[in-house]
């Protein structure tokens, strides 16, 4: 094999041309649907009008970026993206860890499997379905408000109340993703040596102490890697979820970068301005991904690719 390689690339390509045929559809699709739009970002530096077309539109340099950075609404959506993402991180990130530790303590395999089957399920439901479910649950005469009323509290129109809307986003995201998130930690938990638990028992450790001194340290490297990787989506508040659930009454608290790009770009037809906002988002996300991956690699010698 090594002899072949030494004869150079052309020889290899000619003799293994069919390997490149196998790659061709994937390469073409990637160029067309990934790289062409990346090239298309240049409209952020042009004054794009549908009728002038991509090539005919005049260059305007950083005009749109100047507008973006002097637009106070842009800072609002930037803040919303960040704060919703942080809320989700703070509330949701620890939940799969706790849930997987609880699941790991279950001795009855059938019970454990049943719970797992149930909690994984919402991951496979679309946001449209989740919206439909919670719309019914949280509507004014829905069960949730019935409970509030029974407790003597006022009914809350959850989807149109700015004060609680971010909470709705966090809660529905938790409902959908926490169970699924346990998979990675459950896998990490299986690698902990069971003898550690047995000997700690002999030393008189209780369950709580076992979790603190054996279980948590055992999965800590996974937790840190997941946390670091999660940081890469710090500006990603959950576009499809918000896009489906939000409405003008909660724009102030829930309009995020992606929804703003959609409404300015395709709603108001300000293609170039919206592309400039989108490019800002892409660049920041790219930097965050590179940084968090470098951190993960440094910490644990592991990386996403």
């Amino acid at each position: 094999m090594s002899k072949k390689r030494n004869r150079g690339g052309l020889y290899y390509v000619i003799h293994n041309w069919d390997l490149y045929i196998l790659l061709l559809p994937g390469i073409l699709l990637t160029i067309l649907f990934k790289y062409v739009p990346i090239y298309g970002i240049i409209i952020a530096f042009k004054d794009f009008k549908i009728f002038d077309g991509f090539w005919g539109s005049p260059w305007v340099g950083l005009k749109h970026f100047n507008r973006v950075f002097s637009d106070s609404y842009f800072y609002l959506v930037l803040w919303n993206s960040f704060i919703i993402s942080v809320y989700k991180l703070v509330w949701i990130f620890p939940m799969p860890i706790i849930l997987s530790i609880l699941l790991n303590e279950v001795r009855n395999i059938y019970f454990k499997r049943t719970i797992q089957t149930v909690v994984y399920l919402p991951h496979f439901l679309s946001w449209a379905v989740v919206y439909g479910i919670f719309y019914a649950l949280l509507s004014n005469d829905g069960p949730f408000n019935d409970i509030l009323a029974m407790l003597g509290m006022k009914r809350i129109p959850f989807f149109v109340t700015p004060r609680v809307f971010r909470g709705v986003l966090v809660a529905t995201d938790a409902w959908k993703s926490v169970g699924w998130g346990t998979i990675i930690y459950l896998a990490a938990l299986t690698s902990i040596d069971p003898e550690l638990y047995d000997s700690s028992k002999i030393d008189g450790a209780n369950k709580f102490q076992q979790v603190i001194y054996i279980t948590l340290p055992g999965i800590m490297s996974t937790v840190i890697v997941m946390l670091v990787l999660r940081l890469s989506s710090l500006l990603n508040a959950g576009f499809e979820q918000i896009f489906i659930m939000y409405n003008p009454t909660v724009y102030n608290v829930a309009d995020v970068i992606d929804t703003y790009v959609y409404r300015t770009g395709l709603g108001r037809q300000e293609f170039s301005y919206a592309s400039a906002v989108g490019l800002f988002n892409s660049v920041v996300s790219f930097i965050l991904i590179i940084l968090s991956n470098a951190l993960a690699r440094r910490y644990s010698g592991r990386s996403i690719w």
Partner: protein
Amino acid sequence: MKPSLGERVFSVFNSILLTLIGLSTLLPFIHVVAKSFSSDVYVISGQVGIWPLGFNIEAYKFAFKNTPILIAFKNTAFVTFVGTCLALIISSAAAYSLSLPNLYGRKLLMYFFVFTMFFNGGLIPSFLLMRSLGLMNNLWSLILPHLLVVYNMILIKNYFEGLPDSIRESAMIDGASNITIYSRIIMPMSKPILATIAVFSAVGFWNSYFNAMLYLSDPKKITLQLFLVNLVRQADLMDSINSEIIVPPDTVRAVSVVIGTVPILLVYPLMQEHFVKGITMGSVKG
């Protein structure tokens, strides 16, 4: 060792807690199912809990007769089936070539693919591209951009790399071409990973909403998720539909949630054995 008292208390407490968590996952869905089978009086007065009141299937009949739900179902099934099959073939073909350590240009090609995971042109350029390709109002606009998902391709590639080299080598000696080895030997050996990826892409195609909203406006091209969101958003949609039976919008919403979920519930047991393997394989790897 016999469990101590403390352990037994913990175990009971733990089981109760997990049961509650399980219930809080299931009950919202059960509530909607119950609603979809309840009669209108109970739905309008908000009395339905987790059990249908005044059981009937009128709302289902109504939905199938008076709303475009069947068209939506057909379109979604088409996108899911065609998309999943093509995605499997295209991703695994590319994955096979990239799994060969000697492939000339392998590193460059990997950068070419992986870069698209981290940087993208964003919404507006993608939209304009789809328009200039003439794919607006075409179901293929939901399929074509998702035929090569780099992450899935890498999972398949990792699996191929784990297969023993000797198989490929002996087939080479027998004079088999690369394409023959890929399609006749490697693919049949890789059913577990292909099943995993098939599940993930099928669920992705089935659930995709935003692209459908973006590219499809023709009512004949409506998809299930699109229909569902429109339905939940437009409370008075039903008023525009002439019909003798008036079914409350809440019930029709419940029906469409159920119809949008049932296919996933049906394949869920089949896929469960695969996806856990899939995700742990794909998880942060060394």
